[in-house]
């Protein structure tokens, strides 16, 4: 079956612009996660959705970052007034959720470059 997909694959934008990154999770997965990975580092947690609600957004770095999942499937990560430090690979993952179903399946990521 289809895995997690993310669009676009690459995004180049200018400092101060607004960007949206999209994630399509595996069908039937109720849990959806966003991570950010800087060069040479491991991924860092941003936000987690269980269904439509953000269950844990403690990893969002500041209020320029926001994510939604209005119908409990596709999610969009939104970044306002982008800064050069936002440049990274943004990874999305999904899982069935719940005890015994914790394995997270990752998408290929969106590489964001802020000039």
């Amino acid at each position, binding site marked *: 079956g289809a895995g*997690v997909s993310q669009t676009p694959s690459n995004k180049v934008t200018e400092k101060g612009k607004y960007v949206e990154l999209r994630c399509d999770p595996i069908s039937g997965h109720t849990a959806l996660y966003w*991570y950010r*990975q800087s060069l*040479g580092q491991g991924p860092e947690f941003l936000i987690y959705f269980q269904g439509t609600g953000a*269950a844990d957004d403690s990893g969002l770095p500041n209020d320029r970052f926001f994510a939604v999942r209005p119908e409990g499937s596709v999610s969009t990560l939104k970044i306002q007034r982008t800064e050069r430090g936002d440049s990274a690979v943004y*990874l999305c*993952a999904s899982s069935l959720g719940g*005890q015994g179903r914790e394995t997270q399946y990752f998408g290929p990521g969106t590489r964001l470059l802020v000039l």
Partner: protein
Amino acid sequence: SQQGEEDPQALSIQEGENATMNCSYKTSINNLQWYRQNSGRGLVHLILIRSNEREKHSGRLRVTLDTSKKSSSLLITASRAADTASYFCATASFSGVQGAQKLVFGQGTRLTINP
């Protein structure tokens, strides 16, 4: 912040040899997962070991977990050139927020298998 620390940061061995990577963490966990990443993009889930398990096998992979020492190891036996990649350990703890289980990654081990 990242909880896991992988050791070594880089490892280069000959094809056919065994590769061992270690991971240490700081807080109590529900489970620990190992992932592989090629070319800085999507992560591939390798194996999950729960906090009440001590060892797990999957094909050429063997994972151990010592919760008293807060450490885990990943052993790849009979390595192949295709095993060249970065390997990350990630710890999972239920946050109490609707069962959220964010992953906290280490910085990874860059494994190179020489033909």
